[in-house]
């Protein structure tokens, strides 16, 4: 049986500052080596100044993944040399001297499959190496320390996945969960990175390191299973090793570095005393946790009668569920859910479009009201929504500007109905025997009014005229 385990590194990008200093946690907008200070550069004499909010956020993640949360946690030094590591040790956590990591064993359901979480640890991200130069001969390595010290939560799972599909589903759940907890923006480049270990039946465990995105993680796992299976089929032994993911060629490559031989000389980080996260603090954090995705879904279905499928889509994306919760009333909930899931999703389907969108929750409320009071047809509402996202103008302005208001004036509408009937004598004749044809005529009226005709009134008028 194939066994896959994951180690996922998630940056807490929603935090204001780094794990041990006040530089920005989100370093992406900075010129190289400008989001740095004596502490994150590891200058002589500096000490880590613990970001208490990071402790809280990481605890919340542990709770959301049903992990045990110890009342006392500790940090350790992992000693190794690497140019992107300013102190030449990383401040991290581990459990070899008892459960001192921020999260202990937990689990999460992926469909019907239970995935066990081994532990959750909080640590600092190193800086970044940038390679320049075309060939290995003239290649130079540049170091950017902007990222050094960014708070990182590592989620370690047991080898409970059986195939890449489960891995993907888990990753989707995890990134929705992190987004919903408002701790991370999984869409940001480099915010989510992973290592995986993969073994097939009868083979040794192979570690894959350095996978830069969730998208590549699934690919890497898939590649590795195929590679191992083809070796197995040819009766070539699968050796226990560390492989690196080559994200250009999309393959795994055997690592020249024997990482398993590194000795990290772990010991307690004396500059950060043990941190107490007592039961009272834990209870408080729990009570302040954002509503979980599953409970949101449950609420949408039972309270507002929103269809199951729609509720799943709406609840799993914090952007949409926040919009929904900010705009809906008991009366218009279904309508708003409908607008979001059928019309809005197509308009803001990327992170970039979302940030550019001018839509406010009040817009959605106005739209739903206009539809329910039959001031706007659904088609017009969709056109209006497009304009709102683009310009952020008020609905009433857009209706006036684009002349989207419903044609509900009976006389006016009757003229159009007459016009259609005179143009479609055949359909009129058919409609008398086949009631379905009447919809064709409604459509024609809509076409003529650019979707603005009040559909109920149109139907009534047509029925009256036919009979």
């Amino acid at each position, binding site marked *: 049986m194939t066994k896959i385990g994951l180690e996922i590194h998630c940056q807490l990008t929603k935090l204001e500052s780094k794990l041990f200093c006040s530089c920005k946690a989100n370093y992406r907008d900075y010129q190289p080596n400008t989001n740095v200070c004596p502490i994150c550069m590891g200058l*002589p*004499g500096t*000490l*880590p*100044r613990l970001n208490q909010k990071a402790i809280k956020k990481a605890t919340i993640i542990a709770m959301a993944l049903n992990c045990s949360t110890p009342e006392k946690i500790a940090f350790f030094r992992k*000693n190794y040399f690497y140019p992107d590591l300013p102190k030449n040790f990383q401040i991290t956590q581990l459990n070899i001297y008892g459960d001192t990591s921020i999260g202990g064993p937990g689990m999460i359901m992926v469909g019907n499959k239970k995935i066990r979480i081994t532990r959750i640890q909080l640590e600092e991200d190193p800086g970044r190496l940038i390679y320049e130069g075309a060939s290995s001969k003239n290649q130079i*390595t540049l170091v950017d320390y902007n990222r050094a010290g960014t708070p990182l939560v590592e989620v370690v799972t047991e080898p409970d996945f059986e195939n890449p599909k489960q891995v993907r589903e888990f990753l989707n759940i995890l990134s929705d969960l992190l987004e919903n907890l408002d701790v991370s923006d999984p869409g940001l480049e480099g915010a989510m990175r992973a290592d995986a270990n993969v073994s097939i039946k009868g083979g040794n465990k192979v570690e894959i390191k350095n996978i830069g995105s969730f998208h590549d993680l699934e690919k890497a796992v898939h590649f590795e299973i195929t590679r191992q299976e083809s070796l197995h089929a040819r009766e070539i032994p699968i050796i226990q090793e560390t492989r690196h993911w080559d994200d250009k060629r999309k393959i795994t490559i055997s690592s020249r570095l024997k990482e398993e031989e590194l000795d990290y*000389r772990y010991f307690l980080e*004396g*500059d950060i005393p043990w941190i107490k996260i007592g039961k009272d603090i834990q209870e408080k954090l729990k009570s302040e946790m954002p509503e979980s995705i599953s409970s949101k879904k449950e609420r949408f279905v039972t309270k507002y009668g929103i269809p199951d499928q729609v509720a799943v889509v709406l609840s799993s994306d914090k952007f949409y569920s926040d919009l929904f919760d900010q705009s809906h009333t008991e009366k218009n909930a279904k309508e708003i859910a409908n607008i979001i899931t059928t019309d809005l999703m197509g308009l803001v389907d990327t992170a970039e479009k979302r940030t550019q969108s001018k839509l406010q929750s009040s817009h959605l409320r106005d739209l739903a009201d206009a539809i329910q009071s039959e001031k706007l047809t659904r088609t017009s509402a969709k056109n209006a929504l497009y304009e709102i996202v683009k310009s952020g103008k008020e609905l009433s302005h857009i209706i006036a500007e684009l002349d989207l208001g419903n044609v509900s004036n009976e006389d006016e509408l009757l003229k159009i109905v007459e016009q259609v009937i005179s143009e479609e004598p055949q359909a009129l004749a058919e409609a008398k025997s086949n009631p379905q044809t009447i919809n064709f005529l409604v459509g024609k009226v809509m076409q003529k009014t650019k979707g603005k005709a009040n559909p109920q009134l149109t139907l009534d008028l047509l029925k009256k005229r036919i009979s």
Partner: protein
Amino acid sequence: MNLKISALEFVNEVKNGNISAEDFVSATIERIKNVDEKLHAFLEVNSKAVEQASKVDKKIKSGEKVGACFGMPISIKDNICIKHSKTTCASKMLENFVAPYDATVISKLKEQDAVFVGKTNLDEFAMGLTTEFSAYGPSRNPWNTDYVPGGSSGGSAVSVSAFECVASLGSDTGGSVRNPASFCSTVGYKPTYGLISRYGLISYANSIEQIGPLTRTVKDTAFLLNILSGLDPNDNTTIDNDKDDYLSGIDSGIEGKKIGIIKEMIEDGIDPTVLSATNDAISKLEGLGAQCEDVSIDMVKYSVASYYTISATEAGSNLARYDNLRYGYDFPVEGFEFNSYISKARTKFGPEVIRRMILGGFVPSSGHAGKYFLKALKVKSKLTKEVNEVFKKFDYLIAPTVPILPFKIGEKIDDPIALFQVDINTVMSNLTGIPSISVPFAVSNGLPVGMQFLAKHNEDKSLLQAAHSLESTVQLPEIPI
């Protein structure tokens, strides 16, 4: 100008207008010029010190609010960062390192209008107890310049005892404040771990070291502690002392107090002169109304081994950052093969630093940690338990600060084990985090002997009271320089 006054006397003299800060600092700088060629307490002298003192005088004249130090000339061990000044740790590795920020203790002293006269010599990265391991040459004991001044804060102790400043800040990892204080006949104090912020002190063994003052009197130490102590957001290990006033009640005496004499610290290898000084001290304390009694702390015999194992482990990690990638010195790189690169980058470390880093790479490594590092941690925790137990019975513990007299420069430098053993009486308070203080007690054949008091965690105030009581019984000869 009489430079031989205490910090409190200095404050009074300037406050009352008897002397100006500028004149005093100027005379101090003159004194440094005259004697430091011989003593080598300083690695760098602040060329702006007199100017800074005159600014304080102006503040006083204009009636502006003046800080508690009134322009007091203070020297700073060169492993504590002062913004825009070189902080070398007496190492070639940091020969040109200019700190871009102030250590917390420096900010606090600046706020109180202290004037820094210069940076003092030390054993490279504070590893040693003689200053002979300074990359810039040893300091000399002002009582006899053929002798070591102790270390690693040797330069600080020399500068105080030779009147090159009024007070100094050193750092104490295994005795590095108390040992030179004892050898040079100054007060040297290692606070409870966390009482003074370490932010800006270049780490050697961060879990056990503290910044501590070296002064002429115990009261001066209390005066400085009032300024230096307290919570610091930049150091997670600092403790809240509720702005305690360490000067108030310092004359309370020690009548009725119980003092334990640590047997393991006056046994093997103790110099007979030091032993007899210790017995004198005990008699004097009894004369003051204290009850003294022998006490045994079994783990003391393993404490030096434990100390060197733990401090080397932490040093190996703390000094790993000196890889010449971000700052350091230029050197020709031939290729990027890691081992050849790092061995080249580290050629500027001196022999003692290299010794401890090699040790620090070995003792916590997998396969050896159980035999060395983890065992050392066990000793540390057992020792702490024993000490806590002892303090249920005693108010203070006493032992000579160093079991031997100052020795000659060069005498022990080639025998690291013998040097390590000299730390036997001082490492206990670092391993357990308790406060301790060395008080000048005797001068024997021209060489000083210091007496050490230890108290339990956070009993620093009471410790200073006891030290002051003993100090008041002592009359020492004038220093011959």
